[in-house]
């Protein structure tokens, strides 16, 4: 178990140093779990996603790291990684939904108030992804902060630790990042030409 933990720690470190291959390696290890947990369990809970996200990330963590390794130093990095994985899951989901919609022939009868909400949210999700990508091109750290906070539900101190920066920086940049995201959402709301 501890050899594995060491390797994961190494992978996480490589990943935070910008090595994308390690991300793919890591995702092999937990992506399925995250996706399955996300779909099956969040779907049932429905409320209070913050807490649910935390629960499922913890569960993946406990599974990987083992309960005995509570002091594992890669914790924050691992959460950051899960946040990034969660982003992929959600974006895949949103794209699929959109493709289905464009596909036209979809049979889905119960057009209750809920399904309209989902479509709006899918659009919002894609708008946010768009904004995160733009941020990535301009200020990578700010984009990472968004991923940790928004997709991973991470606390400010955890985010700071994962990104190797200060709590204050995270607070300041998160405030601005939120403004960009909100504006991106509003731009998305505006009627097209």
């Amino acid at each position, binding site marked *: 178990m501890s050899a594995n933990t060491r390797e994961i720690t190494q992978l996480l470190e490589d990943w935070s140093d910008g090595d994308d291959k390690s991300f793919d390696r890591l995702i092999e290890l937990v992506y399925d779990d995250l996706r399955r947990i996300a779909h099956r*369990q969040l779907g049932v809970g429905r409320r209070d996603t913050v807490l*649910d996200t935390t*629960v499922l990330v913890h569960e993946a963590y406990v599974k990987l790291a083992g309960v005995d390794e509570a002091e594992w130093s890669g914790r924050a990095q691992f959460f950051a990684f899960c946040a990034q994985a969660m982003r992929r899951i959600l974006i895949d989901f949103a794209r699929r939904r959109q493709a289905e919609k464009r596909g036209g022939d979809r049979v889905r009868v119960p057009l209750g108030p809920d399904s309209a909400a989902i479509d709006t949210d899918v659009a919002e999700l894609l708008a946010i992804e768009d904004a995160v990508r733009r941020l990535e091109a301009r200020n990578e750290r700010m984009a990472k902060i968004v991923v940790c906070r928004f997709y991973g539900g991470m606390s400010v101190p955890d985010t700071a630790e994962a990104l190797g920066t200060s709590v204050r920086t995270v607070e300041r940049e998160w405030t601005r990042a939120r403004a960009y995201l909100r504006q991106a959402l509003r731009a998305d709301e505006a009627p097209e030409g």
Partner: protein
Amino acid sequence: MSTDPDRPDTRDRPAQDAVVWERWAEVDALLEQLLDMPEARWETYLAGAHREDPDLVAAALALARESIDTGPDLGPGDRIVDAALREAGPEDEEEPDPIGGRVGAYRIVSELGAGGMGWVFAAERDDETFERQVAIKIIKRSVASRDVLARFALERQILASLDHVAIAQLLDGGVTRDGRPYLVMERVEGERIDRWADRHRLGVDARLRLVLQVMEAVEHAHRHMVIHRDLKPSNILVREDGTVKLLDFGIAKLIDHPTAGAGTTRTGRRFLTPEYAAPEQLLGEPASAQTDIYSVGILLYELLTGSRPYEGGAQGSVLEQVVRGEQPTAPSAAVPPVDTRGGPAGQAGVGQDAVYSARSTTPEALRRRLRGDIDAVLMRSLRARPSERYSTMAAFRDDVERHLAGHAVHARGDARAYRIRKFVGRHRWSVAAASGALLLLSGSALGLALQRGRLIEQTEIAQAATAEAEREAETARATTDFLVGLFEANAPTERLGDTLTARALLDRGIARVDEQLEGQPEVRAELLRSLGRVHMSMGLQEEALPLLERAVALVRDSTDDAAPILASMLSSLGAALDVYRDYDRAESAYREAVVAALEARDTTALAWARIGLGSALSRQERPDEAEVELRAGLALRAFEPGDEEQVWRAQRVLSSIVRRQGDLEGADSLLLAVVEGRRSSPGELLSYTRSLNDLAVVRRLRGQYPSAEALYEEAIDSATTIFGPAHPETLQYRANLITTLAQGGNVEGSLREQRAVIEDSRSMWPDGHWRTARSLMALGGALIRSGRPDEAVPALSEAVDMGIEQMGMRHSWTNVYRAWLGVAAALTDRSEQAEQFWTWSLEGLEAYEALQDDASVASMVEVLVATMREQGLESEAVPFARLLGD
């Protein structure tokens, strides 16, 4: 992105968005500047600094406004994520249409309503014996947890025993023919309490008396150990004669038993009405009588003011506000101002004037009426921590009655003391993260004075000690005055103290420490340290460190005999650095603290410094040095009452070092001390549970199986109380117990527990969850090892099915299950099938390149190979062993 020259002021949003992204660096720099200044200065600043660049100004200004917008927060857990995943939830159930039909002995007459849980129908019982109008609640299948039915009879008896004029009686219950649980209740004709009160234009007194009826009913239920858990206006009806009836008593629990959900974290919240739920419910903690007290507090608040607490507060959900330590707005301050423009405002659709006319009062009169007593009573009932609310519903009711009778209410007496306590305690929700090493702010200076009383060689320095104790008593007084001053200076009315955030108080405190305490370096240092600790507890390490460093520097420079205080200051700094994970600097702070403590001959300070040093060393993976320091610190035995938790923690760290060095006996006696200590102190159940498990692990390693089993059983019991039976932590303990039972030769006991785990997993997790499959595999393996491969076959087949369905044919876990099934087949003389399973399994596992590095899979394969060899399948095991690189 050209803008329309004719309409320069109405630039559309996409165009503005384009400016933002194309000129991002400029926009961002300007935005950062704006956010560093108060909002009021933005316009002036922009008009001066960037007049010539309207595009930039407009973009930055819009963003700055977004960032202070109080709209829905984009913080973690935004509803989007929820919605995106909602699709995976269970399909909505079709509504049953039993009208005209029968449920049990009742004939359904009409539908009364539908909600999250299910549907309510009016029905009558028309058999010979008697005729009765009832309401039947049919519960959705997706809502009813698996063990609802099992517990149904018992719970129903308890609920049926609630016989109170103001509680709608539960009459009967069962399962409909299509498998939906149902409840039969007394049918009540009445109107929702809030609407009834408004329609009758009840004034404050009448509203209070109405709620007294509710309180009496809840009190009655609490005496019968029943908690409502979902009190809200729609569950409280008033009949035309003005008497109150409470509906759905205890139903929330019946449907959503804590052991039926994913621990207490998820399912327990499914049917909450968030607006009326207590913080502990939102956090997934168990409900208590205080939960109902909180809900009644909200009900009363809303009946009196027309709005709910926190509604006018800062941004974020109620939960976030509570966790941040914010207080609800006092009722008297929640009374909305008269809306002179007459438009609708405040809460949904209710014009503010309506609030007053419905209460036959005016804003000023209502505010005056609520200020003081009612503010105090409601704030007491609405405290975030259950233990700080009224201790019983009777006490709450008593205060309301005292108020109506014109006597002083009890809640007011403790308001002032509470504010000071709260300053310290506000952030307890987050204190756990910042290590338990925090002294209470107001008590710290006093605590220090007491500690100092325990100097060695007391006769020799008795005089010095007396002088020192006096000086510290002085410090303590100055500290207390200073703290009280912080609250009073800016609080012209009592209420303002409640709305200050802890953060603002801290900032003010830092500023004042410098201003006011010039020339009192020790008091300053003590306060800086306390402020540092409070910052730590709020997770603001960055700001805490400079404060603690300044405290150390002040002491070092100020007095000739700095050593006594210096030692404890340095230990505080060390603890902060430790939390900040700067172990090198923590180590040197502690080392300096050791020197200072020796110089001051202060045993207590020395003990803590060495223990701190030991923990820092242990985190640096220097176990040998760590052991020396921890042992030395603990051996001084210089602890005060209240230090126990820290001592136990140190013993636990030491025990794990000792255990890793192979000294099981030493680890045992350390952990035994922790367990015994925690058992006899009314501390936290969770840390007690974990120390039980720690000790059990050591006992198992020592081969003392019966004792390990007993400890695990106790740990499992309390983990079940805390989390439920199939929470990952409980399951970990249960897995430990299963291993121990098997190792100790109690094969039957081990199998029985393994089967119980499987059943609990089934009821806790969704169908086919990996936990259930893993447990089935474990059971199969155990059966094979105990010579019962025939019994292993069904368990392993089910595991394989689950694996295929949930993870796919190619997933490594599925293929481990297949290999096990192959073993069971081979041992029951079905060699052909065994070959087939093994071929599939190997095909899948060989394709998994990372297998050797994936501990979860590698360890499963290891056990598999060992079992195969043990069962005489030597040659068949070879290809599996090869997967591990053997």
